[in-house]
């Protein structure tokens, strides 16, 4: 039995401890946002955040996740109420087939926490581990910047 803090909620999972986190998310917890791409931690489609850090969930055994804070794309917002990054990706139409987008969103989320006003170089460096075969890279970069603007406006409004 492994205990996860999944998108802010404590969950018990019964998968074998050596099961990749990705399989636990998709098969046991039925969260299908994170995708299986290469299974080798090389394409980024399976990226989730663990304690705020991007992690390839396809090569991460769930035994390492006991008590850890895991965030998946489902934790960024819903279809009815998309989060700022999701809204920006929709506005920029940054997805074509969409297979890589969940991973892109989570790595971008980690970037925006670290660098609230990222420049092209920051985005390129941060998203380098994420592969996209459709070629929407320019839109993805625009979407990350758009989300950064939304978030900084929101932060100013609060101040």
């Amino acid at each position: 039995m492994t205990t996860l803090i999944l998108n802010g909620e404590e969950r018990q999972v019964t998968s074998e401890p050596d099961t990749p986190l990705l399989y636990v998310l998709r098969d046991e917890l039925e969260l299908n946002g994170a995708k299986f791409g290469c299974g080798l931690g090389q394409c980024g489609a399976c990226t989730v955040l663990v304690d705020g850090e991007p992690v390839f969930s396809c090569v991460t055994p769930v035994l390492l996740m006991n008590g850890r804070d895991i965030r998946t794309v489902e934790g960024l917002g819903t279809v009815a109420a998309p989060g700022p990054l999701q809204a920006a990706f929709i506005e920029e139409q940054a997805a074509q087939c969409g297979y890589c987008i969940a991973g892109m969103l989570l790595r971008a989320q980690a970037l925006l926490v670290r660098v609230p006003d990222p420049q092209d170089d920051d985005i390129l460096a941060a998203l380098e581990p994420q592969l996209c075969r459709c070629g929407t890279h320019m839109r993805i970069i625009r979407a990350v910047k758009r989300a950064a603007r939304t978030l900084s406006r929101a932060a100013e409004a609060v101040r």
Partner: protein
Amino acid sequence: MSFRRILLFGCLLALTAFAAALVYAWHSPLAPIDPPSAASFSDDEVRRGAALALIGDCRTCHTAPDARTFAGGLAMPTPFGTIYSTNITPDPETGIGRWSLAAFTRAMREGVDREGRHLYPAFPYDHFSLTTDGDVKALYAFLMTRDAVVAHAPANDLPFPINIRLVLAGWKLLFFHPAPFVTEPSRDAQWNRGRYLVEGLAHCGACHTPRNLMGAEIGSRAFAGGEAEGWTAFPLGSHSPARIPWTEAALGHYLRAGWGADHGAALGPMRPVVENLAEAPADDVVAMAHYLASLGHPVEKPLALAPTPAEAAGLRPQSAGWQAASAAPAAGLPPGQTIFDAACRSCHAAGRPLPLGGVDLAVSSSLSAPSPQNLLNILLQGVPASDGEAGPIMPNFGGALDDAALSALVGYLRQDLAGHPPWPGLADAIAAARRAGASSSHARAVR
């Protein structure tokens, strides 16, 4: 003698010493030339220079990420501050276009630029000074026939007093004693060629020899191991910690292919070196391996490795793909082994040797090294794919492994799998490697 006279005499003495120091430190500028035309160099000389430039790793330091080759601007972190490499394309204003062969030779041999300024020894003239006239001329021909690129190197970020270049004259007086290469008559031509390259252009000692507090190589401890850019440069020859001694054949293969089944893969700052040598003349690399093998190896330590049963679950060659399914971890194993079985075994103990499978961690140099630095770098940052080069890859586990899990895994790998005593100061090393990893947001091979 009155007190005044003694004082005056003392002042005069100090002034004379200061003037003498200035005279020693002073190098006059060499006359600028009009950039020579490409036609003034022979093709053969340019080709020879190109090969030598690969062995000298010129492009590795003199190229910034995603910028033009040889245009400089690469930030080189040193214990003293950051030094930026210079533009060595033949651009007349920002490069070396106005440098005569004499000026280029003086830089290689004496570490002084055309204008007469002392160069920082991040430019390894303490090795390059061995280079023969003919080879310096070929390198000059090669560089002067590259595309001229306008690129100003950023100003160095060094503290006082080492930001004053005249101070380097004192450093040179203490630590820089250039001498031409002398052929060792008792050895054959291949050994002498290898030594000439290893000690000279290839400047292996720049990383693999420890440095003193003033940043100079400690000659009496040649190849005893050093550090570069946050990575351990493994001790070589009789200092080597390798579980399976390096042979000439293993060295030759490693230097060109970038990996060896009995030792591991070239990573960190060694990665661009093997990428350069892969393109260099085979004979020269073989000669380097021949010389390096002649440095000997330590007395063989008994190697007691638990044999992996060929029939063990997950090791079947028919398992499709690059990874093999592992057996479910048995209950009650130490945590480090449980992590290894679940996260590492499918590549590293799946019965597939390099380059398609993972490094055999029982014999890996990263596990037998004097410090856990390289192992931690690999675990935390992974091995990103090289741009446009076939090379090893590994996903990073920095986010997945918390400090307790990392420490348990490293302990298992070092002690149980590789059979070495524990590394002292592991917790501090983990903290340092995490800090270094955070500052280089995504490590990639720079060439």
